[in-house]
């Protein structure tokens, strides 16, 4: 049949603004709002539609590390230092200082614009996790209160209303494709981006004085299901790291791109949809778990002491100031290890039997309702597919046990070569202003290396938006290189004239398998070189063979093209690290152990003249975190 939208592939648009924001998730919305509040003309591009776009488009339930909230007993610098220590220095001190110091301010912004952050209806009055005066509800560590339970399903609509009120010009259904820059006096300077309407095929040049990249972390690099591509990864299907790809093509500097972990989430077979099985992590923390006989599985503190009450699961151990849970934290070391169910091997020794189940009926009434109801209702993509769906099937948390699968409660079973960028993965290298090495181009949220969750996205987005506004004050609107713009447009639209070509899914499946083969659990130079060569072959020989019958298919193809670029970035970054690194989950069969100490820091990578260039930045590059924060916060008074 005919495509239902007009064909505008012959048009070539041009738009100008002071500040251009690429990506309309949480970080992009806050960047746009911050710049607009400073009086700037702002344009925002969103591949989907802002109302529900991004990883938190349909909700999120935890606002983490809000250390300046009135109940919190942990200072921002104390939390940032803990995360730094916990991740052996492979942590983003700048991002975490912004997140821990200003996250609470962003939450107050959301409340002002109609978001719900308190139990105003007193649904949970008297609960251990609720502060009776402020009506704020806490998660994880009820003593130290750094993470809040929030009603995230309402946040994207609130941000959209605020942007409209400020006059931000929003281009929904517009894919950001190419970063535009000029080089003057040896310095690259961003001048805007090329975007394409995902329904009409209209290509537009968006010129701006400064640009903020607010796109996702890469995905579909190792994991791909040709049948259900939408379930390949944890994050939104169309969020695949185009910001990384366009940045790398433009010579932007990245770090930690050699880090990948054995996959934890993909609903395409190896695991279940997040938060949809019996478990006791994240949204479900700290659910009561039972074994096949109905015997309760004990929680223990960091010293192995069995916890007798539910309340103790939310409290630090004797002598411990606070524990770390949620966000980028997986299994913290002793100092910050929180309550956890007894280790699986120990349970097997003691005769506990699979399968395990979550048993909410055994919990205090408020704890049961806050998990099944509020949290499972507010977390991203759980309200409809999990809460609603299971209730329609008859699930009753007071009567039923929800099964978990496999050995434990991750309900996931991946092979070592099935990898994912998860748990503080690599991203853009940046300074205290969140500016990249391409002048006047800033980054926020998931674009940043070692990024965190929703609160981090909002706080860094706002920070980057403020600095992009200041940069726009000092910059002029420049013309991009005309030949480059025309060549890019030709590249973007060309697949529309390929007929009866290959399906984009075949190419994505090939690149994912290639990465499993050449960039799996254990790396070595020979395999990585073959990987680079194979990516090059796919790009040169196969990419031109793929056809697109309409702009929708064209977007999918652009994504695969970007995935090839990100794969190259990852392979190159792996080549640059020659010794093993446990904190980066990086292992080689040809590791040069003598280089381990030398390489203990941020190895950076950027492309220059068609070649990958290696750099090195010490762990401590952010300097004194309090001084850095105060100096760069942009004159705002707390």
């Amino acid at each position: 049949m005919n495509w239902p939208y007009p064909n505008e592939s012959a048009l070539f648009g041009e738009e100008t603004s002071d500040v251009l924001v690429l990506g309309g998730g949480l970080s992009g919305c806050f960047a746009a709002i911050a710049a607009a509040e400073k009086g700037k003309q702002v344009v925002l591009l969103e591949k989907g539609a802002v109302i529900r776009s991004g990883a938190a488009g349909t909700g999120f339930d935890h606002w983490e590390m809000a250390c300046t909230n009135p109940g919190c007993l942990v200072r921002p610098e104390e939390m940032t230092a803990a995360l730094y220590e916990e991740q052996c220095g492979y942590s983003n001190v700048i991002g975490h200082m912004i997140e821990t110091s200003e996250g609470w301010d962003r939450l107050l912004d959301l409340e002002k614009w109609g978001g719900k952050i308190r139990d105003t209806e007193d649904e949970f009055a008297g609960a251990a996790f609720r502060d009776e005066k402020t009506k704020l509800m806490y998660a994880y560590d009820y003593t130290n209160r750094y993470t809040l339970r929030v009603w995230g399903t309402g946040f994207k609509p609130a941000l959209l209303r605020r942007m409209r009120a400020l006059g931000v010009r929003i281009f929904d259904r517009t894919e950001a494709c190419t970063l535009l820059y000029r080089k003057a006096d040896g310095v690259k300077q961003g001048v805007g981006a090329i975007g394409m309407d995902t329904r009409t095929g209209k290509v537009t040049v968006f010129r701006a004085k400064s640009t903020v990249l607010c796109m996702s972390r890469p995905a579909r690099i190792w994991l791909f299901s040709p049948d259900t591509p939408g379930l390949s990864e944890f994050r939104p299907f169309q969020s695949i790291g185009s910001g990384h790809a366009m940045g790398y093509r433009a010579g932007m500097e990245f770090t930690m791109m050699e880090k990948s972990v054995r996959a934890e989430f993909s609903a395409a077979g190896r695991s279940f949809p997040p938060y949809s099985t019996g478990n006791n992590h994240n949204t479900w923390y700290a659910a009561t778990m039972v074994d096949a006989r109905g015997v309760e599985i004990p929680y223990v503190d960091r010293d192995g002491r069995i916890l007798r009450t539910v309340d103790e699961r939310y409290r630090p151990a004797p002598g411990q100031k606070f524990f770390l849970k949620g966000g980028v934290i997986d299994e913290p070391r002793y100092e910050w290890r929180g309550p956890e169910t007894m280790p699986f091997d120990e349970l097997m020794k003691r005769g506990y039997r699979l399968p395990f189940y979550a048993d909410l009926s055994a919990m205090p009434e408020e704890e049961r309702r806050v998990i099944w109801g509020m949290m499972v209702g507010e977390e991203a993509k759980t309200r409809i597919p999990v809460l609603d769906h299971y209730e329609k099937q008859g699930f009753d948390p007071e009567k039923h046990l929800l099964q978990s699968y496999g050995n434990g409660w991750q309900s996931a079973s991946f092979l070592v070569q099935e990898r994912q960028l998860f748990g503080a993965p690599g991203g853009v290298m940046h300074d205290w202003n969140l500016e990249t090495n391409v002048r006047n181009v800033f980054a926020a949220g998931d674009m940043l290396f070692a990024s965190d969750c929703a609160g981090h996205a909002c706080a860094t987005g706002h920070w980057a938006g403020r600095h992009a506004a200041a940069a726009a004050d000092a910059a002029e609107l420049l013309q991009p290189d005309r030949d480059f713009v025309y060549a890019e447009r030709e590249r973007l639209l060309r697949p529309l004239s390929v007929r009866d070509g290959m399906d984009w899914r075949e190419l994505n499946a090939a690149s994912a398998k290639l990465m499993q083969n050449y960039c799996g659990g254990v790396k070595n130079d020979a395999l990585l070189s073959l990987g680079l060569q194979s990516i090059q072959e796919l790009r040169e020989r196969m990419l031109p063979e793929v056809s697109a019958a309409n702009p929708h298919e064209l977007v999918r193809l652009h994504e695969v093209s970007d995935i090839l670029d990100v794969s190259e970035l990852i392979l190159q970054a792996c080549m640059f690290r020659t010794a093993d690194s446990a904190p980066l989950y990086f292992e080689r069969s040809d590791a040069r152990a003598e280089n381990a100490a030398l390489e203990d820091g941020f190895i950076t990578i950027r492309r220059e003249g068609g070649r990958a260039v290696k750099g090195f930045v010490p762990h401590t590059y952010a300097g004194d975190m309090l001084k850095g924060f105060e100096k760069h916060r942009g004159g705002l008074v707390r």
Partner: protein
Amino acid sequence: MTDEKFREDGLRFTAEVTGASVMPLKISGELCIGCCRCVNACQIDVLLPPEVPGEAPRVFYPGECWYCGACVMECPVPGAITLRHPLMNQAKFVEKKTS
């Protein structure tokens, strides 16, 4: 700016349903009022608007659904759209033994 080269190509866009082993969405022809809010809430354009205005939208790219539920959340008619995960992804629950 326009570019004559692309005009002369006379490209015509077409669309066919890209089949998958799953059907994430069921839209009730009876309940649907054809407002297409789901079409515009979907981040991926899994749905396309109907050829005849007022009819129900159509699922063109079922495999690309990431099961976020935005379409159901925006739908003004309860029950007009049903979202369900593939069978392999539906976890089992059992009644708690009271003994």
